[in-house]
């Protein structure tokens, strides 16, 4: 087990360093000058603009040599300082993100977990029931073949506009202010449902297909045949097949985390949901260096954290990893 965790931690550490480097590198070499953009909003004469430009370049540390900027970036990062947003000046990036983060957690955690559970359930059921298989499999394939935003658009159009039963934009009604009240909670729930549903359905499709195929594969394995030959009841054979099929599905859950980022982003765009996805897009459109970096960093940290939790779950569930019997599970 120490070897297993050491390997995993090495990969996570490398990923984090690489991600932070990319994070620093890419916005830095983006065409366009964010300070000039910011100054363009307040029209001043050219001389004054030059002075202000130099001043802000100095304040943001953009006049230093690149290697210093890189080291400073790491230094501040480790102190939890992500800089100040340019477009929501002068709010610190961490504050801007902290406002968006609860919506993401509210949306993503239930969508990922529920689609994973439901997908595994239905996938396993479909593997042993021909009738159900003929219903679940095509539907599951359909959901995975759909572009995220199209599913979201269809849901918004049909449930939101044609039937008019659910709101399709924002996280709560425009007439309300965030408060701990029943009315606000209800509005929050109503606005949450459609984005949740679209993410849930796409995730469900992928997981159900994966589970179905794994169970079929496991039921053909030697141990399943041996149990059958011994005259073990079907239920017992299936129980073992399910247990074995769960392991790759847990790895699949980790991989789904990276994929769900893209899904969450477009879903938030379709439903104007104020999560990190919408924030990142707004930051890119306004060339807000620090906010882009902050959003990207939070996405990375979220994915790494999710992966780590999955790894721990894997060790708990698969005794082989604990005894160092398996070479490389993932």
């Amino acid at each position: 087990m120490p070897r297993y965790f050491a390997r995993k931690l090495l990969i996570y550490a490398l990923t984090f360093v690489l991600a932070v480097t990319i994070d620093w590198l890419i916005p830095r070499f983006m065409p366009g000058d964010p300070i000039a953009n910011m100054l363009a909003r307040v029209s001043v004469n050219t001389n004054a603009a030059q002075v202000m430009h130099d001043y802000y370049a100095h304040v943001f540390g953009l006049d230093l040599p690149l290697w210093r900027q890189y080291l400073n970036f790491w230094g501040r990062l480790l102190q939890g300082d992500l800089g100040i947003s340019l477009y929501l000046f002068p709010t610190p990036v961490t504050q801007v993100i902290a406002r968006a983060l609860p919506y993401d957690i509210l949306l993503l955690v239930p969508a990922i977990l529920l689609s994973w559970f439901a997908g595994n359930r239905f996938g396993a059921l479909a593997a042993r029931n021909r009738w159900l298989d003929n219903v679940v499999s095509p539907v599951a394939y359909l959901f995975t073949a759909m572009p995220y935003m199209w599913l979201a658009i269809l849901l918004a159009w049909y449930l939101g506009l044609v039937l008019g039963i659910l709101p399709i934009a924002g996280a709560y009604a425009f007439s309300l202010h965030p408060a701990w009240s029943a009315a606000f909670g209800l509005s929050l729930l109503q606005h949450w449902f459609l984005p949740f549903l679209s993410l849930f359905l796409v995730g469900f499709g992928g997981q159900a297909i994966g589970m179905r195929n794994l169970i079929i594969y496991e039921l053909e394995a030697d141990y399943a045949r041996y149990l059958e030959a011994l005259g073990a009841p079907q239920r017992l054979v299936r129980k073992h097949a399910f247990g074995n099929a769960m392991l790759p599905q847990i790895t699949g859950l980790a991989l789904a985390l990276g994929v769900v980022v893209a899904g969450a982003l477009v879903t938030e765009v379709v439903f104007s949901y104020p999560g990190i996805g919408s924030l990142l897009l707004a930051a890119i459109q306004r060339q807000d260096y620090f906010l882009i970096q902050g959003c990207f960093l939070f996405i990375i940290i979220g994915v790494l954290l999710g992966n780590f939790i999955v790894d721990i779950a894997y060790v708990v569930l698969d005794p082989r990893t604990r005894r160092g019997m398996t070479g490389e599970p993932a």
Partner: protein
Amino acid sequence: MTPSVPGREFLYFAWRNGKLRFGLALVLFFLGVALLGPLLTHYPPLAYLNPLGAEAPSATYWLGTTCFGQDVYTQFVLGLRAAFLVGLLGGGMATLIGMLIGFMAGYRGGLVDEVLNVLTNVVLVIPTFAVLLIAAAYLQVRSVLMECLFIGLTAWPWAARAIRAQTFSLRTRDFVDLARLSGMRPLKIVFTEIAPNMLSYLVMTFILQFGGAILMAATLDFIGLGPTNAQSLGLMMQTAVLWGALPLGAWWWFIPPGLAITAIVGALYVMNVGLDDVFNPRLRERS
């Protein structure tokens, strides 16, 4: 390991497989529309043609018009072309990189394998979409080819991992040992002994990457980071949502692009399931 099927026998079982036939027919249908469709329209894709704005499909405008009075059919067929291009080049490139890394790691083993494995895992963990997003935003003018490049460079890890595992299991087979003993060079062994024996696997990987690239491109286009100088299906959906196709009820504007992508990618998946049946005699007997 999937045994390779000689050509004639393969064609026989392939033709008998309903899933493969259905999937292939659907993909070829859309390919036909993509290739021939643009020849049937003489409207420029972005010209403001219909003074009445958004109108339902009619004899003049086959798929209706956008709220600017642009012809949806023209945009649709051109976007379809872009989708196939992205699938072919983006998916193809991802498959090639995956093959390169997978073969190298699987055949060489040892330190090369360790290093490539760490690299693959790192790229697998990084949410590549977020990287793509920032990289795409970095360029103000983007072409379809550039989008293919972006997708190809980020989509390869799982292909590499799968191909590595397959190569690993083939590497110790007798016929590979024989080739090695006869003094064949590693590169030649990989391409003449190992690759042909997992051809079915490579084909299926490419098909999945093809579909994945189309979906990825649609997502990028939808958030406005697609090609700046071309039509695409994702872009159509973006403008539809931005300019109120939903409240207008202009279903003819946002249904066709998404439907086409779903149909193409779905058909590719169905084809893959069919191919699996053809390549795996065991699965064939079961169904």
